[in-house]
């Protein structure tokens, strides 16, 4: 048996772990191809959360009774596990947020408003999700710094021809590791050293890469990394910001409230140490337990194997859709599967993405129509909307075949 066959067999067995993938839509088996928006979760994660709620739940970091200690332990174990999963040197550098959007807002609000002002500049790319654009625009409107843009070049890649000029004098490069529209994997190994050489920090929106490939923030060399739990088999309601300790220590708190202070008087407050300083209020306790269970699940399969599975599936899909639909289909993004994630932005000739998705839904196929919260990118691509199919470890070639057949049906339905 070849390595590939072993991998395929392993992945074929995973579907049964996901109860929702056993359900039907419109009388057809569910073909879930929207994991770039949010993944599904296995029984192991659901059971871990149920167990936490039924046997070990209390608020964390407060009570002295045993149950509160058990809950605190579970929450802090999740932090340790998350830190190990992303190769963080110090688990205190892992901050739990509501989602990746909040994590990016934390950086823009706390670091941005402290360190940026008139005459300063940051660099973003037009490939960013709105979550890595709008928080910076809000801070810029208040503080008067400049936002410079790396634009889209050929084959779904960034145009880096003017990188040195853009980085010159910039204080921050905030960039996605993988486009949620094109699947493009950006060359961080080149961009991060370039930004640092120019004196800029680097914040990475890693929402699309952390769930799908090995991540090591220390090797990556970034200063901040943000991602969400619900895209990596974990529950909604939890995101992660990792940051270098010396930066986090120097930053003011983001949200204020209980849990983030060391002292409060009527004259003012003293913030607690990192990470508590950035975790105001009751945190996502059971969500953290769920995220830890998701990490266990992913690690048991192996992130390298998951990446390999998705490269193979993406290659199969690019081939299959071309065979089935010929010139009637356009798939945006890099043409080489190894340079991209399993995210296919599909345009069907003469059929609007909204209509494509509607017909696909009648086949039980879940894809996402629209601009995918990346309107500046869509504008540069010159398209109004695409239908996005995205893969995860539980998808297989049967799902791609179902997608191809449903797309063919959508095309004949609307053919002029």
């Amino acid at each position, binding site marked *: 048996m070849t390595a590939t066959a072993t991998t395929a067999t392993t992945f074929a067995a995973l579907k049964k772990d996901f109860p929702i993938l056993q359900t039907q839509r419109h009388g057809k088996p569910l073909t879930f191809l929207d994991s770039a928006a949010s993944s599904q979760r296995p029984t192991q994660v659901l059971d871990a959360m149920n167990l936490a709620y039924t046997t070990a739940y209390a608020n964390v970091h407060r009570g002295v009774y045993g149950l509160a200690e058990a809950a605190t332990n579970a929450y802090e174990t999740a932090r340790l596990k998350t830190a190990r999963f992303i190769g963080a040197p110090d688990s205190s550098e892992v901050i739990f947020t509501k989602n990746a959007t909040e994590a990016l807002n934390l950086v823009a609000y706390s670091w941005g408003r402290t360190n940026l002002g008139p005459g300063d500049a940051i660099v973003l790319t037009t490939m960013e999700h709105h979550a890595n654009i709008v928080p910076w625009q809000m801070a810029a409107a208040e503080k008067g710094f400049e936002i410079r843009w790396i634009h889209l070049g050929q084959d779904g890649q960034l145009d880096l021809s003017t990188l040195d000029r853009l980085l010159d004098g910039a204080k921050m490069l905030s960039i996605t590791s993988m486009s949620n529209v094109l699947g493009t994997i950006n060359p961080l190994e080149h961009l991060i050293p370039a930004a640092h050489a120019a004196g800029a920090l680097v914040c990475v929106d890693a929402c699309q890469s952390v769930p799908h490939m090995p991540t090591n923030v220390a090797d990556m060399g970034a200063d901040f990394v943000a991602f969400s739990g619900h895209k990596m088999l974990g529950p909604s309601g939890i995101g992660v910001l990792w940051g270098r300790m010396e930066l986090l220590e120097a930053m003011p708190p983001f949200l204020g409230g209980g849990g983030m202070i060391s002292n409060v008087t009527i004259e003012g407050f003293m913030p607690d140490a990192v990470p508590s300083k950035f975790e105001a209020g009751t945190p996502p306790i059971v969500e953290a337990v769920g995220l830890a269970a998701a990490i266990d699940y992913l690690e048991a399969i192996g992130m390298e194997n998951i990446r390999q599975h998705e490269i193979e599936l993406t290659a199969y899909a690019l081939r299959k859709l071309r065979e089935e639909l010929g010139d009637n289909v356009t798939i945006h993004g890099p043409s080489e599967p190894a340079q991209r994630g399993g995210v296919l932005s599909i345009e069907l000739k003469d059929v*609007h*993405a*909204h*209509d494509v998705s*509607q017909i696909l839904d009648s086949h039980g196929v879940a894809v996402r129509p*629209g*601009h995918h919260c990346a*309107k500046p990118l869509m504008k540069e691509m010159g398209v*109004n909307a695409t239908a996005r199919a995205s893969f995860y470890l539980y998808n297989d070639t049967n799902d791609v075949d179902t997608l191809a057949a449903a797309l063919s049906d959508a095309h004949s339905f609307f053919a002029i």
Partner: protein
Amino acid sequence: MSDIEDLYREIILDHYRSPRNAGELETPPATKAEGFNPLCGDEIVVYLILDDAGIITDLKVGGQGCSISQSSASMMSAAVKGKTVEHAREVMKTFKGLMSIAETGAELTEPTPDEIRKLGDLAALRGVVKFPTRIKCATLSWNTLDEALNEAQA
């Protein structure tokens, strides 16, 4: 008839493939309003000219979007061009009722069979109501028309 066939009736596909009154008008004299569907990025631009008697003497629709938003815009243009503002608002109210949308501050009134007949081609869009996410597509051009009329009358 399946829900999908009910959604995409032939008359809808016909308006989508051959939109009526597509294009632009010079502003001024025309009034222009733009509508966006933030969910999917669809855009509708309505241009209209209102005469002193309150008649919509000319109307054009620009923009891009899915079959539902584009066909609805085409049908809307055919239904109100050459008609009075009063008539346009009456059709708007009936159409929104068909889409299960009540007027601001009012109870939802289901259109009567007679009112639906008066909608003509627009009645073909009634299948949309089974697909709640698409109601916004169907009403986008009407909300944009509403804005253009308010502007023209301001």
